[in-house]
Every structure is written in C-alpha cells, then in structure tokens.
C-alpha cells in the first residue's frame, strides 16, 4: 500500500454483516431519493425522464453511495461559509457550474446539498441535483445554442443556504424563480429535490440509531475501502501495464460553425495507478458545447465502466479516486475557462463516454463496445397560444445504443440510465402539437455480427406559432463500428412548412420560428455495429426484415443474406453472396469511422452549413 493512501484504508472495527447492512441500506436510500423526487417534481424532464442524481457522502464529503461523484469540498470552498458554519437543517443550493468544478455542468441543473448531523456531529452529506425546466437566459429552457458566455444562460445561484437551520428562505427562492420563465415549476422542483435530500438524512439517522454513530462512520470508511480493494483487483486483471492506448473522436460542431471538435484520450497504467490524459483535446470553442468535466466525476465514469463491464455487483464510490490520475488541460473543451458558455455540453459529455469506451476497447482483450448516437438530443418548443397562455415544452430524445459484447444495441433507447420518453398523449394533452409519428429508423444502426441500435424518427405538427430550439449531434461524424462492425447513419432534421417547402436544419439551432401547421421531422443517429456482419445468423437477418427493422437491400449488401419471396433465407444464394463480399471487400478495420471527408473539408462543410443556415435566417 502506498504511503499516501487515503485515511479510510486499513483495518475496520466493524462486524462484516453490519457493514453489509449499512451498505445495502444506503443503496436503497439512493433509490428512494430518486423515487421521492420523481413523484413530487413537476417538470416532465424530472418526472418522466428521471433526470436527477442522488448521492450520500461521508463527513469528509466523499461519496459513499451514488454515481456521479461529489464536489462537496469545492462547493463549500466557493461558498461564503466554512464547514464549521454548517448547521443541522441547512440546505445549500447552487446551479453555477463554475462554483462546483462542474459537478453540475450547465445552469439548468440545480444542486442541493444537505449536511447531516447526528447528536450534534457532522456525519455526512446528502445531495441531489436535477434539470429544471428553465432558469432564464436568452432562450426558453436556458440551453441556447448561440451564446458566447454563461451570462446568457440564465440566473446562477452561487453556493448559498436555501434552508438555514431548517428555516426555508422563501425570498431567496422567490428571487431565483422570478428570473425564470416557469417560476412555479422552479419552486416545486427545487422543493422536490430538497425532499430527496431529507429522505437520505432520515435514513442516515435511522442507521445511527440502530448501530451507533461510531459504527456508522466506521462503516462509511469500510465501504470506501472495500470498493477501493475491488477496484485494485479489477485494474490488475483488466488494465495491462506498460502500453499506452489512445483514441480520438470528434463532436460535430459548436452550433456556430466551428468544428469538428477533437477529443483525445490516452490511457496507461503504472503500478496501481491508471493514468487518463486528455492532452491533445481541442481548445474551448465559442459556442455552448464546452463541457466543464469534473475530475472526480470522470474518475467515477471510468470506474463505473470497469465495474459494469466486469463486476456489476461492486459498489461504486469515491473509494477508488486515488487509483486514477486524470489530466484535463485548462482551456480545452473539457476544461473551459470562465465565463465560457456551457449550455449544450451534452454532445461533448456523450462523446467523452464514447472515447473512454473506445480506448478501453483497444486496451482490453476480447471486450469491445461501438460508438453511440452521440448526445442526449433535446427539443424545446415555446410560444404563446391563441388564448394568450405561454407554453414551453422540453423533451429529450433517444437514438441507437451501440452493439454490445452481449448482443445487439437497442433501437431508440437511452444511453443515460433510467430516462423515459414523454408519452405522446401527455404532449398532445398539455402542449399545442400533435405527434404524427414515432418510429424506428430501419438500417440506421451499424451492421455487425451484433448490430448497432437504430435511431428514431419523431414527427411533430405544431398547432400554434412559436419557436423551436434543439440540439443534436452526429450529423457530420458517424458513430463508429468496432472489430469489423460498420458505422451507423447520421442524424437529420427537416422542417416542412405548411406550403410544402422543406428545409434541412443543422443539428443545433436556436429560436427557429415555426407557424401553426409546420411539421418537424426529427431523426436521431444509430449506434455502431460490432463484429463482422457476415457472421450474423441469416435467420436473424430475415426476422429483422420481416419486422421492418432492416431492408432487403441491407440484408443483401451488408449482411450478404438473400431472401426468397416469402421472406425466408435462401441458403445457397446467401452463401454465394457472402463469399462474393468477402472476396471484394478489403480487410476489416478495428474501427469503422464511416466515409468522413478530410479534416479540412469537414471543417469547411460545417462552416458552410452554418453560413447557409444563418443566411436563410
């Protein structure tokens, strides 16, 4: 054990069964926090899309249970008070990414932090954050595409006490809510988040009642320690020492004509320490796709990947932080400097996951995952209806989950856990629009022994004049295939005006006016394929053609499967076709990035697309 190992490492004076009980109670509490927020929040984004993130930390602010890591020390550092100023019943609130080192990475995410006291002593913290519908700024939903600074992205609360000693500061909340377009939503959702943190406080109190405060605190240390031990085993088993592995991929653009934007990651191991270095990543960009990546959160992502790939039963927490060394170059798109705009960090966040997956796919023998649909596409439709009522709809959409070691990717599913689509019937009941289609985009997932998930198409007809703002990505670059699997198809957006004229739109637009009767066709990208498509079982290909998830053409050209008129596999013709393809195609690449133009051409294409769109204005 290294001399500078964290203080929780060592012998723990706690009965192992008690420890297991504390751990499982905290795990259940995390789920309970989510349930409380989901049921009491008002925003569809929180309640239907489960966009909230609980954690329980120890008295040092280290996350014992949760999945996004904590930045509690930074938050308190940036607040006007010290740890010693915290009191029972306080709740700290902030939505300023720059005040919490990116623990929340754009302004609509409101983070609440509650110190937990027992018999007068600080025994830990609970924290919960969620995506509010609106925090003001230049566009409804507060995620402008074209903003140069964070000042255009709404009101920011620095870390301040929203509750002081159990007393709720109504004036503070009112001041905040007053600056948003949907003040009642903001108030209800923030209260729901606070209720979530209170749930954790109650459960921690119960654990202290049951086992004693000292045992509880010792238990937290031991939970951190045993996760660290488990992670050391995983690292030794799966991360080879010595060699350096790198991977590069691009986010299309920043919504202002700048792109492609490169992410570059290098991973290597020395002893027990795994180094993850983002040097070589592009500088921050003028638009809003900058992603203030919290270092601890990235360590968490890395650990969670290893755990989910190889030992899904291991608890993840801050215990393994000292085993990862992360380099995030200052001023890069993954560590932008204040006051860079951050509203649309989702493409960068998603790509960061793709790059991490790809680097591990290179580094770990026999384990590969392809590239994903590349962001959490979202759409805002806002305006004032004929009766004079304001409306504002925010929706997250989904695309193709990459092919996985265990099988095909999923069509139109969420790479981010626990999200759900908002029902079309909810949208039609509460907003002036109809949903004319919500369907799978056949063939858009990359072919492969395991195919990538397909993207989706959703068609909206607007019933009132208003404006739409949306962001998506993977319109210029392709979700890559791996180990012989093919790349997926790109995303597309089209506006069909009432007179029948069609406008192709870039993947990121802001406040595009729409009139009643206009239709939006929103199509998301697929996920990449894994393994040689010619190794896919012909019967499986035939079934997918019958289901309308694949075309006969794709069956023939990509999978080499020839179907008879009744839809069944023609075995002889299939064998010949597969032999032909094998003969004429080149060697299969480890990664298939799709037919990407040269870097300079791609850069010019992206700039031209934006110029053309701005000119149409």
């Amino acid at each position, binding site marked *: 054990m290294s001399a500078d190992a964290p203080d929780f490492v060592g012998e723990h004076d706690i009965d192992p069964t008690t420890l297991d009980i504390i751990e499982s109670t905290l795990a259940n509490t995390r789920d309970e926090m989510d349930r409380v927020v989901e049921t009491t*929040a008002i925003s569809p984004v929180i309640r239907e899309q489960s966009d909230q993130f609980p954690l329980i930390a120890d008295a040092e602010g280290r996350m014992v249970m949760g999945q996004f890591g904590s930045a509690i020390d930074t938050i308190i550092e940036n607040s006007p008070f010290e740890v010693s100023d915290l009191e029972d019943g306080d709740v700290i609130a902030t939505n300023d990414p720059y005040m919490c080192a990116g623990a929340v990475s754009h302004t609509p995410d409101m983070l609440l932090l509650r110190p937990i006291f027992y018999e007068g002593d600080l025994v830990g913290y609970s924290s919960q954050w969620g995506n509010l519908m609106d925090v003001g700024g230049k566009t409804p939903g507060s995620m402008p595409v074209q903003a140069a600074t964070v000042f255009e992205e709404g009101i920011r609360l620095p870390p301040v006490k929203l509750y002081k000693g159990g007393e709720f500061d109504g004036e503070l909340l009112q001041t905040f809510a007053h600056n948003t377009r949907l003040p009642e939503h903001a108030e209800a959702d923030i209260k729901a988040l606070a209720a979530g943190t209170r749930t954790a406080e109650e459960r921690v109190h119960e654990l202290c009642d049951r086992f004693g405060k000292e045992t509880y605190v010792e238990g937290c240390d031991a939970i951190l320690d045993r996760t660290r031990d488990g992670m050391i085993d995983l690292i030794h088993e799966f991360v080879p020492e010595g060699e350096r592995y790198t991977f590069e991929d691009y986010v299309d653009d920043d919504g202002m004509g700048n792109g492609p934007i490169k992410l570059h990651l290098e991973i290597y191991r020395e002893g027990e320490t795994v180094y993850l270095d983002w040097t070589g990543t592009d500088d921050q960009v003028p638009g809003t796709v900058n992603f203030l990546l919290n270092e601890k959160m990235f360590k968490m992502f890395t650990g969670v990947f290893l755990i989910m790939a190889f030992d899904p039963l291991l608890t993840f927490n801050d215990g393994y932080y000292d085993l990862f060394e992360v380099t995030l170059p200052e001023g890069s798109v993954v560590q932008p400097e204040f006051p860079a705009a951050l509203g649309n960090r989702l493409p960068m966040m998603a790509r960061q996951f793709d790059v991490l997956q790809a680097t591990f796919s290179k580094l770990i023998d026999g384990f590969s995952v392809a590239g994903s649909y590349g962001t959490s596409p979202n759409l805002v439709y806002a305006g004032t209806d004929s009766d004079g009522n304001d409306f504002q709809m925010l929706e997250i959409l989904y695309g193709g989950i990459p092919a996985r070691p265990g099988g095909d990717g999923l069509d139109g*599913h969420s790479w981010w856990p626990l999200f759900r689509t908002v029902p079309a019937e909810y949208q039609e009941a509460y907003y002036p629009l109809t949903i004319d289609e*919500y369907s799978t985009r056949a063939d858009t997932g990359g072919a492969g022994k395991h195919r990538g998930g397909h993207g989706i198409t959703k068609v909206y007809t607007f019933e009132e004049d208003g404006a739409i703002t949306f962001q998506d990505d993977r319109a210029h670059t392709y979700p890559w295939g791996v180990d012989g699997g093919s790349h997926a198809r790109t995303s597309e957006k089209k506006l069909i005006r009432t007179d029948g004229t069609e406008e192709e739109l870039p993947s990121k637009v802001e406040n595009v006016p729409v009139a009643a009767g206009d239709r939006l066709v929103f199509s998301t990208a697929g996920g990449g394929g894994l393994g040689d498509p010619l190794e896919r079982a012909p019967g499986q290909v035939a*079934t997918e053609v019958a289901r309308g998830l694949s075309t006969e053409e794709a069956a023939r050209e990509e999978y080499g499967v020839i179907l008879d008129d009744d839809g069944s596999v023609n075995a002889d013709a299939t064998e010949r076709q597969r032999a032909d393809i094998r003969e004429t195609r080149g060697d299969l690449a480890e990664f298939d990035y799709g037919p990407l133009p040269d870097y300079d051409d791609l850069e010019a294409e992206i700039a031209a697309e934006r110029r053309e769109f701005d000119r149409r204005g």
Partner: protein
Amino acid sequence: MSYNLGVDVGGTFTDVLVFDEDTHELTIDKVLSTPANPSEGVLRGIEEATEKAGTSVGELDLLFHGTTVVTNMLLEETGSRVGLITTEGHEDVLHLARAWTPGPLYGWMDMDKPDPLADLVDTRGVPGTISSPEGEETEPLDEAAVREAVRDLQTSGVEAVTVALLNSYLNSAHEKRVREIVAAEAPELPVSISSEIVPEYGEYERTLTTAINDYARPQVIRYLDDLDDSLEDAGSTAKMNVVRSDGGLMSSEAARNRPVELALSGPSGGVVGAATIANEKGVPDVLTLDMGGTSTDVSLVEDGTPGTTRQTKVGYREFKSRSVDVNTVGAGGGSIARVQLSGALQVGPESSGADPGPACYGQGGEEPTVTDANVVLGRIPEMVQLGGRMDLDHAAARAAIEGIAEQRGTSVEEAAQAILDIVNENMYGALRVVSVERGYDPREFGLVAFGGAGPMHANALADVTGAYPLIIPPGPGVMSAFGFLTSDVQNEFSETYLQTDLDVDGAAVHGELESLREEAAAWLESEGVGPSAHEFEYFADCRYFRQDIQMSIPIDVDNLVDGRGLAEIKDDFEARHDRQFGFSLDAPLEIANLRVIGKGSLEGVTIEEHALGDVDPSGAEVGTNEVYFDGSYVETPIYDRTELRPGNEVTGPAIVVEDDSTIVVQPDHTATVDRYANIEVTRGESA
C-alpha cells in the same frame, strides 16, 4: 349440507381449503400442479380435498379460485401470439418501450430486453386520429385499412388481437369500431380494446397492458372452459369466483375477458387473508410477510384494508392494472448465498429452486441457501420433514455453509447467522418500502407472517421493525387459499379526468362519480350480486397540477355537493403529501382519475372463536434441540402446533413445528395461542 372451497394454483403445488358451512371445519389439502394442462391439477385437488372433507364435488356451494397461470405465462414467455392494431405512425410503441434502460450508468451494457408481446411482424398501423385534449375525430378511421390488417393478421396465425389507438382514452369510438370489424372478419379471435382495459393516458402502458391481456387470453379461456367442463362432469353446480390481483373476485366469464387482472392473483390471497384474520383479532393495521422458496411478498394493511396500486410489475414489464400493493424481493428459503469480490456477502436473488433445492434436501444441491443456514443453526429440528416429504441432510447443509465460512474467515455458525441476517435485512428493506418510505411507522403495526418460510424468520423481522404483535395464523402454508375464501366480489371503474379545482367543482365531480357508480352497479348485478348487497367506494387520484404523483384520496360523496366540495379532497391530499414528502405547494389540485369500486360480499368462510384454556403448553412439547441464538447454542424446547391449545403460552426460545412450516420463537419473546388459533408472539414476558 354445503361447502365452500378455495383453491390456489401455484407453479409447483396447488393448495385447497374446504370450509364446511355447518361445522365451520376447514380441511387442507395440497396436490402437485400440472402446468402443461392446469385444469387437470385443479380438478384433482378439488376432488381429493372434498373427499378428505367427507363430501363431494356436487355438494360445493361457492368456489374461490386463484392462480399463477398468468404470472408464469408472463415470466416464462409462454403466452399466445398477439396481433396489434395501432395508430399509423406509432407501430413501434412496444418495441421502443419508452427508451428506458436500467441504472446505473452503463446499465445498457448488460440490459436484457425481451421482445415485445406483440411482435412487430404482427403489428399494423391504421389511419385515423382523435384530437387531444378535446377527444374529437380529426381524421376518420380508415375502415378498409382495418379490414385488410385484420385479414392479414388472421392469415398469419395470430391467436388474439389487441386494439390500442392513440388518444382512445379520450374517445373510444375508433377502437370500438375496430373491434366490430375484427368480430365480423375474424370472429374466432378474442379482441381487447385499450380504452376498456385501461381508460387512462399513456400510450405505452395502455398498449402494453392490453397486449398482456390478449397474450394471456386464449390460454385462460381454454383453461377456464376445461375447468368448467370437468367440474360439470364431476357433478358440480357451484358458482365459480376467480380471484383478481387486487384481491377481489370476479366471475369466470369476467376473467375470460380480462385475464390481465389475474397477473398477481396468487399473492393477493395471502394479503387479503392476513388482513381478515388480523382485523378479526382486533389488530387492523398490520404488515404482511409471505416468504416462500424463491421470493418474499410484503405489504401494508391499514384499517383492515390491504393497500392497492395501479402499477403492477411482473419481470421486466410494468403495466397498469389494479393489484394488492405487494413488494416482492428475491429472498426465500432457497436463496443462494455468495461472497462478492469486495468481500460483501450477498443472499439471493438467485435461488436453488425446487430442484435441486437447498443442499439439505439431499437432491444434489451444493450451493449454500437460507434453508441450509437454518438447518445448521438447529432451527429446523430433525423430526421435521420438509413439506412432509423428505429427510434433512444435515451434513450436506453444513458442507455448503462451510464454503462461505472459509471465504469470510468465520465459524460455520457465524457464516450461517450472517446469511440469516442478510436475508432478513433484504426482507426488512422490502418492509421499509411499504411502510417507512410511505410515511408509516412500522412500530404502529402488527406483523402477519405466512408462507412456507415466513414463520421461521418472522420473529427476527418483528424485532428489527418493532412491528408487534407477530401473528402466525393457522395453516400458514395455505394462506392464499384461505384469503380467497374471505374475498368480496369486486371491480373498479375509472376514467381519466385531468381537471383542476380551478376548472371544476364538487357537483361536477359528483356527476362523474355517479355515472361510474351506475356502471359498477350494473356489473355487480351481472356478477349475480343483488342491489341490497352493493357497496361502493369513491376515489380521486390527486396531484398538484402536472405532477406525476397519483395519490388516491377517498371521497365522501355526500360532502361533494352539500359539504366543502373539493376543498375537503384538497386538504386530505395536502396532508398526505406533507406526511410523505415533507412539503406542500401553492399550486392547483389536479384530479387525474376518478374511480369507483363496486363490492358485494360473499360469505366464504367464518373464523371460529374458541375459549381460552390453560397457559401450560407442556402437553405439546415433543423434545428439545440445540439451537443457535445470539452467538451460542441453547437447548430449546420443540412444540407440536397441532397439540397446542388456545390459551397456551410458550416462552422463547422455542421452536413450534407443524405440517407446512416451522415457527422460531426468539429468546425474550412469548408465544401465545389466541382464541382464533393464531400464534401471537410478543416481546418480553407474557402480557
């Protein structure tokens, strides 16, 4: 002479209870289930049990029948081929499944997503639209397209048809028309329409629920037809009642139309039975614990009434059907213990099943299970033959637990105790979900334990939850069948309302409820319940405007018009919201749904009351055993439950054995046989 009979068809065993209406005597019988042809086992059970009770099938008056047939069909994916007719453009509704992937981050990597119950190959979209929220037709139904779709599906071999169109919860005209066309074109195919199965918003859940109905329907129809025929052949004239997931009863005709309502038919019986017994005993607020071989169902009963939920979950699928609110956790006698990479001990959800079963069954099982831990610690005495059928292999149990002891570096006893502590903790977690999480303090509740393994673990759970008294009813292994006998004829009628207290008043709500009540009354009549026996309960599912919560608030209809109207409902809602979540809002009240439950009671069984006798239990003592409690072995007396008499008091530690289960009474506890023949366990010396 007349008899009533309750029959609970499980995956492995079919339990039968016969109640003699004259002598009030109960006869228990258990036969093997016959999953390949379920009606066969049921008939055999009925014949065997009636014979045992000294009567015959012809003497039966009322039949109460619950079954896991639908549950197993869903879990094992053995239902029928379903065709789906939906709105054009929305054909992928089941395939896209609301995009949900499990947590945590990267949960998608391991997600195992089953195919939709209606395959895309068997799904057809048809043109025709209904506007929202007005519910007006904006594009007529394309009947030619419907006809073509039906013929197409018929030729391709579907066995049932689901019709689920967008916005049909607002206007069901199109769905009804599609049903007429199916009936005309393919009269042999059962067809369900979503606006009748779940008249509520949410296209995915409504479509899924309706598809489940049709997935189960052809087999349920066949099964009930067979059962009716064979009962008739056996000379039965009894009225058949089928137990629904919410613990109510419906006719076998109604069950043929709505098999989705049977998804949790089995577990509901136990809860209803437990509620009845506890209520009769004067303990109306109880938690229930039903621990079997692979899983445990827990629930909360308040004021004698089991809680119900609208969200029912079976495996991956979560759908909208009213059921007794049971929380299921993978903790049972067969749950397997493992040591994780981090050193943490995990028990379940994997189970050794019935075959090979725990190591102590001596059928070749080697994995350490909860039952093996109980055997090692002496909690299952030598004289007990599990299920009355097999001898215990102590050596095999000990060998299985030794593996865990080695990995944990403890003694075998400590390892066995740790397994029990962890499995108890898992059940405690489940009990917390139904109590603490919903704002109830378990210390204000009693605990009713049943199921094969429940009585063995119940005392430990009463201890940790503080839920006393612990009540172990007679025949804990056949509690569901008993519960069926206590059930009422019951059905729920609901509609989506989506109005706020700014837009409607009490009179408007009263009008809506009245029309639902009329529907309920008509249904009760059709189930053979006369108007004098009708009872109605009224509920509004409330939330703050646009919240997702749906708190069911009971309504006193008389106060809607003359009393405080909606204000009374709002106050009740806010009080509950505050109790559960700790805050309320200055926002309008939204009534999402209105519901009326129509009930008619049947007298299936009467609970016998006995005089209390002597406290001395020594007449029932059959030996002693070394049992491990709190770190050491204690010589512990063993009692035979069949010899214990009302009034007898047993001081813990003690083991009480009976045919289908074993009761562990912990040290510092007292077990008393009450006047209803329940065993009641309390903390400390006798009360």
